């Protein structure tokens, strides 16, 4: 078995009740690159993203077949420890949801549940990850203030720090800038560019310009099917499929 990809999706089908949300998706996500999943609303982008860390299961009536192989292990296989799978990935949602606790405890939450108890270690982890998320300067004097008091842009960076604190190898972003103002969005995008040498980043976006700015690799989806995937340059300049061309030109949306 080769481990050239963190995430390999093999013939993945997802149903919500009777409706099929993903149809036979097979794709390898390149390592240490930013991969953007693009496509019109309701095409299954978010479903595909959530399938990577098994966050589809809490949804009512969901059925999943096929494989998602992370580091050589099918995460939908039997006997898989789901908390370990999720620990490998940080998640940024559309709207930031800090946990109902202080800024410090938000970042320390993950490390604590994974067994880090010493105050000194936690202090270091918190400082380190807040710095990576470029939030440290803004919050170092009020680490024990409620996270709910931060602005929404700061909250999203806090969520990034929180996700990084469990030392994932992969960062998943579900339209992570869609609720943010342009300035905060740029902040997050810059973070992604800094982080891509060390992490495999997958983002869902409906902003084509964002995909152009950030992505190294692009997946184009339409109505639950993966229409085309390839390096960003090729997808944006010379897509193979007519549908991709039309979407990028703005004919279909």
């Amino acid at each position, binding site marked *: 078995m080769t481990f050239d990809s963190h995430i390999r999706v093999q013939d993945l089908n997802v149903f919500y009740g009777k409706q099929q949300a993903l149809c036979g998706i097979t794709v390898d996500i390149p390592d240490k690159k930013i991969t953007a999943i693009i496509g019109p609303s309701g095409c299954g982008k978010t479903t595909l993203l959530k399938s990577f860390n098994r966050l589809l299961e809490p949804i*009512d009536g969901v059925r999943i077949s096929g494989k998602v192989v992370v580091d050589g292990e099918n995460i939908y296989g039997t006997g898989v420890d789901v908390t370990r799978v999720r620990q490998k990935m940080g998640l940024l949602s559309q709207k930031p949801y800090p946990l109902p606790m202080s800024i410090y405890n938000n970042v320390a939450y993950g490390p604590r549940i994974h067994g880090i108890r010493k105050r000194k270690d936690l202090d270091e982890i918190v400082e380190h990850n807040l710095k990576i998320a470029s939030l440290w300067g803004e919050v170092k004097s009020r680490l024990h203030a409620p996270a709910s008091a931060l602005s929404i842009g700061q909250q999203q960076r806090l969520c990034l720090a929180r996700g990084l604190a469990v030392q994932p190898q992969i960062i998943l972003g579900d339209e992570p800038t869609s609720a943010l103002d342009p300035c905060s969005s740029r902040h997050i995008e810059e973070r992604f560019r800094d982080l891509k040498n060390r992490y495999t980043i997958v983002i869902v976006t409906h902003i084509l310009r964002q995909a152009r700015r950030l992505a190294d690799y692009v997946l184009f989806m339409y109505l639950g099917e993966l229409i085309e995937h390839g390096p960003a340059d090729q997808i944006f300049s010379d897509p193979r499929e007519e549908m991709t061309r039309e979407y990028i030109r703005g004919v279909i949306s």
Partner: protein
Amino acid sequence: MQWRRFEERLFRVLMITASLIVLMFLGMIVMTILIRGVPAMNLAMITQTPKGGFYLGKEGGILNAIAGSLCLAGGATFLSFVISLPVVLYLNVYARKNAPFSAFARFSFDVLWGVPSIVYGAFGFTLMLFLGLRASLLGGIIAVSFLILPMMTRAMDEVVRMMPEELLTASYALGATRLETAFRVVIRQALPGILTAVLIAFGRGIGDAASVIFTAGFSDYIPTSLMQPAATLPLAIFFQMGTPFPEVQERAYASALILTVIILAICLISRLLTRRHRRHVIK
């Protein structure tokens, strides 16, 4: 145009009137208790147990009932909380969102909520006979728990249900188990609502007479064990009110004043605690 302005005004007046009616009744109740209770109020009322002939107008106080009520409502609140917290966490964190079992459980609690307290009293009494218990503090605690459990559970459930789903997802995404998520995220987020639910249930429990009349019994002494009968404030009021002596009846109002003050204190405490914990809540 004219009609719409008139309509707007009319309804505003109606709504204000309705609010005033509610306030008026509250005011009247408080005034009655104050006017009739304060003159009969004295230190002995809250520091002494009834002496012989208390119900004939002789000396003594209702410390037995104050202590009994606090122990009973406190015990019942604790017992209900220990049962309702796992129920609420199960329904909201573990069970599937629209599982038939959850719907059935919620429906059952709503039905139980509507059961009159005298029925819980009678049921508790039957249960005690079956178990060979006598009227006692423990019996009262169990009966009052029946009464307040449904309301506490549903009140907490409604608060926890309001939580954004993404908050749970955020915790799961960090590799947390459901249990860790329940205790570290759900409870914290819902803490103000949980506190309110607990204190409302306490207030309901301490004020109820019908559920304790057979189960807790009555006693002129402060209970020293769970197996002894215990006096309660609502029953003390009832007994004092039922005597033919005006001065004892006045004491009933003083007792009502004490009960009202306790409930008022509970409301204030719940407000304060809620405010302190609200700052962490994510909207």
